[in-house]
């Protein structure tokens, strides 16, 4: 094989005394502690590590860092499997298991590579143009299988993630020389300073070179109290200087991790001022087949040799257009790599004279790469006369100058300017709240970078203006020029398989904006976000459209800078903490009494109380039936409860509800519909008057928060002169509902006072009472249609009342009933449930409240909208009942009412549907166009290919005269 481990002492990071075993695609391999997966693979001679996204071309290791587009692997097993990890960042751990992504059955023999043979048929925009008939969704599953990257695990993530917030005066992003200089200067000037470094070491590009200045600045930073966080990659800057960073706390893929570890931590850092010192990325040159394993960035090969003691090949050709390549070539030669030639696109100059030991071919370019799964040689041609020469080599080092990492500057709203001589975009001044230093500011001369960074650090610490950046020092380099497009492919974006031909096609099809170019060709849209491809793409775009790079411009940089796990964004908001559920005050009592608990909105509450092996549906039928024949007990504590009081309480509630609350006598209650200004239903409930200036308001369970919010908004923003206070009291009061013909008998048995008897207390009235020393608010109201008492009492006493009542249940034949039975009962009575039977278009008249509105004299919120022409359209969806013609088939909720099966214009839909225990047939509520005028009509309900004939009925189905509520 061609890449190999170099002899000691090469390798700053590796510990040769500590061997580590790992597995790659099922092969057992060995590396050293301190290796990354990429360096260990190279040390083992493994250069083919994956297949490309679209064409399934063989791909190798391209870089040595965060910019890696190709060497993506899936790491770990089972729930710990992490897809698309960059091998260049993955620390090697004992027992690590990694697999190539994007290939089947194996990386060496990939069936998907047949797409490569049809490559000419897969140009930019291919999907949009080809898979559009009859529609994209027909093709999508197959294409997704074909074109996916790694595979995500199916199991839940076993590990933990957490979130930390921090505040600092100066935040330095980047732990290289410039970042350290800035942080030390800021701290020395008295500012609270924090420094984030993405890697394991301070020093950035110098980290592995044992640089004395880095060492001195690092220890100064610690002495000055700079909070230094390693392994912490800042991935975005958001409004008002919020920097988010991800700290890696445990290594992916280590075999000996405990069952659950703290994996990553999200840092949310609010900084008065941010200093970006994020360095620069080496850019590649374009030439045919420049994606072969064995073609890589020159600086990366240098780092592998010196930091990890790995030679990426034995015989290297360097493709260059800048001075930096010569240094790398010299260093690699010293390390034992044969440098066959440096192929410089520029004319002979000063740089090559300094490296006389190396063969330099000036004014030339690579025109072919030989070898399919790995580099075996290349052809070099003179740009002037086309004279060719074949060179044997197994490594091609690509060095096209640098691109400053301006991501944070751009995210913060900073502008960029283009340096024409080096096709380099650098910050144009400073961004709001953020100043760039070092290579990311375009400052490449070492001494200038350090002194500028220090000046910036101390100026910002003192609240002063930062000095301008002394841009320059990157060395002479030519703008990257394209080669004539031949039959072979020049890859611009390696991860997304975007070639120069795709960019040319986009230009030919008149895509002019660089943002459109990006989306049409998908260049820069991979997990690497184009860190080594965007600049080449826009230079090419400029050449094809006759513009300078400055005119083409760059796409907007957006967070995240590098991929971030969903785990770290979710943090602790997973599982039971994702959406904490509310429990009834007497939760344990219900569990002890056989409750089947289910989630209803924010609440975890009894759906039913099944006996033995009874199903939920059977239990609900039995419970509902018993309520109608005898009595039942429901824990209605989640019902929303508000107290509204003050001199203007009555006037205010008149404005809030359809239903006049100011004319209520003390102790009287009334149903109310809450609308928004569009006139649509927001909530409903019962309002009772406790005293002249004090009201008790019941909202629905789900509508409580929005009702309270609406009340506050109207009071604070519109009716600002009203003297009204709204107090939420939901959790203070439990609600125990007793319903059924024997409800009062039951309450009397536990000692409720006679003043609460049906004869003494009318339906829709509220009495304050005392029972067993505790205050009660007893509301006679009914959501079942039977005689009903809603007993409100202090939450902590709910269990006492339930226990006392339940002691008499057996002698009465009464039951506990849950939400399912409550739904059955209210549908039998035709009572709407807001949000189930209604939606964001439903007006009061649609559900039978036209008369209530006409009678009301006072204005109320939403009233004006009810007189719009559309609100009076007789074809509006209106609430009706439905029964199946066959008397047996349950009508499907969500089923569409239409004369013909879909696709057809529907006339409405089924909203609620249950078997009626009272009638012995299925019943349903529905919203039907012009429904109130269609009673008795026969309709068809369509659902998932089935069709049921039904008859329109006028609800309620049970007790139409409404006599039962009186007992």
């Amino acid at each position, binding site marked *: 094989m061609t890449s190999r481990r170099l002899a000691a002492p090469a390798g700053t990071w590796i510990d040769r005394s500590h061997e580590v075993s790992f597995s790659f695609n099922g092969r057992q391999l060995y590396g050293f502690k301190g290796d990354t997966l990429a360096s260990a693979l190279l040390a083992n001679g493994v250069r083919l590590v994956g297949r490309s996204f679209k064409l399934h071309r063989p791909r190798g290791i391209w870089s040595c860092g965060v910019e890696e587009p190709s060497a993506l692997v899936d790491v770990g097993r089972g729930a710990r499997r992490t897809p698309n990890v960059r091998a260049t960042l993955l620390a090697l751990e004992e027992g690590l298991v990694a697999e190539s992504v994007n290939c089947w059955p194996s990386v060496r023999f990939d069936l998907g590579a047949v797409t490569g043979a049809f490559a000419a048929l897969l140009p930019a925009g291919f999907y949009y143009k080809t898979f559009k008939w009859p529609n994209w969704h027909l093709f999508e599953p197959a294409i997704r299988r074909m074109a996916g990257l790694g595979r995500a695990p199916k199991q839940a993530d076993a590990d933990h993630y957490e979130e930390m917030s921090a505040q600092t005066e100066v935040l330095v992003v980047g732990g290289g020389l410039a970042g350290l200089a800035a942080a030390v200067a800021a701290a020395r000037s008295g500012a609270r300073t924090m420094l984030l470094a993405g890697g394991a070491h301070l020093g950035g590009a110098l980290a592995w070179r044992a640089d004395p200045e880095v060492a001195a600045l690092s220890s100064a930073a610690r002495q000055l109290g700079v909070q230094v966080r390693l392994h912490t990659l800042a991935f975005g800057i958001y409004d*008002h200087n919020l920097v988010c960073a991800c700290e890696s706390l445990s290594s992916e893929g280590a075999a000996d991790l405990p069952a659950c570890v703290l994996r990553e931590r999200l840092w949310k850092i609010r900084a008065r001022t941010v200093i970006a010192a994020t360095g620069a990325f080496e850019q590649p040159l374009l030439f045919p087949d420049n994606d072969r394993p064995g073609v890589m960035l020159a600086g990366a090969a240098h780092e592998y040799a010196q930091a990890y003691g790995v030679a990426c090949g034995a015989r290297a050709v360097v493709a260059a257009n800048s001075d930096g390549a010569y240094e790398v070539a010299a260093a690699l030669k010293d390390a034992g790599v044969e440098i066959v030639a440096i192929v410089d696109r520029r004319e002979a100059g000063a740089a090559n004279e300094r490296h006389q030991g190396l063969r330099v071919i000036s004014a030339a370019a690579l025109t072919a790469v030989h070898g399919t799964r790995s580099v075996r040689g290349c052809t070099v041609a003179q740009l002037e006369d086309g004279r060719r020469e074949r060179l044997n080599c197994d490594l091609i080092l690509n060095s096209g100058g640098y691109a400053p990492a301006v991501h944070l500057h751009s995210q913060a709203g900073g502008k960029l300017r283009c340096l024409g001589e080096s096709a380099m975009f650098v910050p144009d001044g400073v961004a709001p709240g953020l100043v760039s230093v070092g290579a990311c500011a375009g400052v490449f001369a070492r001494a200038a970078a350090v002194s500028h960074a220090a000046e910036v650090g101390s100026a910002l610490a003192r609240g002063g203006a930062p000095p301008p950046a002394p841009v320059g020092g990157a060395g002479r380099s030519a703008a990257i020029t394209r080669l004539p497009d031949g039959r072979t492919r020049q890859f611009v974006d390696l991860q997304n398989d975007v070639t120069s031909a795709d960019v040319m096609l986009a230009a030919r099809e008149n895509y002019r904006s660089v943002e459109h170019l990006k989306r049409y060709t998908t260049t820069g849209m991979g997990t690497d976000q184009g860190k080594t491809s965007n600049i080449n793409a826009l230079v090419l775009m400029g050449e094809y459209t006759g513009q300078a790079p400055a005119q083409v411009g760059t796409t907007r940089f957006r967070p995240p800078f590098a991929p971030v796990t969903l785990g770290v964004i979710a943090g602790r908001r997973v599982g039971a903490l994702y959406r904490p559920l509310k429990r009834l005050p007497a939760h344990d009592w219900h569990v002890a009494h056989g409750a089947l608990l289910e989630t209803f909105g924010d609440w975890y509450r009894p759906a039913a109380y099944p006996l033995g092996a009874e199903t939920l549906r059977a239990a609900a039928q039995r419970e509902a039936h018993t309520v109608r024949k005898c009595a039942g007990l429901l824990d209605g504590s989640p019902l929303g409860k508000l107290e509204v009081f003050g001199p203007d309480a009555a006037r205010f509630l008149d404005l809030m509800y359809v239903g006049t609350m100011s004319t209520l006598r003390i102790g009287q209650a009334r149903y109310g519909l809450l609308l928004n200004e569009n006139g649509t239903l927001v909530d409903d409930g019962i309002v009772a008057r406790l005293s002249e200036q004090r009201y008790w308001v019941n909202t629905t369970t789900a509508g409580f928060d929005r009702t309270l919010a609406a009340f506050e*908004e109207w009071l*604070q923003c519109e009716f600002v002169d009203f003297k009204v206070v709204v107090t939420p009291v939901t959790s203070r009061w439990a609600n125990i509902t007793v319903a059924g013909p024997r409800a009062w008998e039951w309450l009397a048995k536990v000692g409720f006072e006679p003043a609460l008897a049906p004869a003494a207390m009318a339906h829709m009235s509220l009495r304050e009472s005392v029972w067993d020393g505790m205050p009660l608010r007893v509301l006679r109201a009914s959501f079942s249609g039977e005689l009903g008492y809603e007993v409100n009492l202090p939450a902590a006493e709910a269990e006492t009342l339930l226990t006392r009542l339940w002691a008499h249940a057996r002698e009465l034949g009464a039951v506990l009933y849950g939400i399912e039975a409550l739904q059955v009962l209210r549908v039998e009575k035709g009572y709407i449930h807001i949000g189930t039977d209604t939606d964001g278009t439903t007006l009061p008249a649609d559900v039978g409240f036209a008369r209530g509105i006409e009678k009301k004299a006072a204005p109320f919120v939403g009233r004006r909208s009810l007189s719009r022409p559309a609100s009076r359209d007789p074809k509006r969806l209106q609430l009706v009942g439905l029964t199946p013609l066959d008397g047996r088939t349950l009508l499907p909720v969500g089923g569409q009412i239409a004369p013909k099966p879909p696709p057809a214009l529907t006339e409405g839909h089924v909203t609620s549907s249950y078997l009626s225990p009272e009638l012995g047939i299925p019943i349903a509520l529905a919203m039907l166009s012009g429904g109130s005028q269609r009673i008795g009509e026969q309709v068809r309900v369509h659902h998932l290919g089935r069709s049921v004939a039904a008859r329109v009925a006028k609800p309620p189905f049970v007790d139409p005269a409404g006599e039962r509520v009186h007992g």
Partner: protein
Amino acid sequence: MMQLTCPWCGLRDENEFVCGGTTHITRPELAASDASWGAYLFFRDNPKGVHLERWRHVYGCGQWFNLARHTVTHEVSAVYAMTDPPPGSA
């Protein structure tokens, strides 16, 4: 995530607040025409620049207040009570 200054609680992160949209909108009388009622319900300016809007410190004191925010830079140039006139008006 922005930081906003609640008049009662001070500087807090944006996720403690909800935005209620444009402020200083006059609610028409019941007798308003369909056109002016429609304009009140649905039509809003979308300025690139200073926008006067109302926010509620919902996970805090619960109070509504007004602020003047630049829609591009997010610079908040004024925070004022619901009943105060717009900044700059006499």
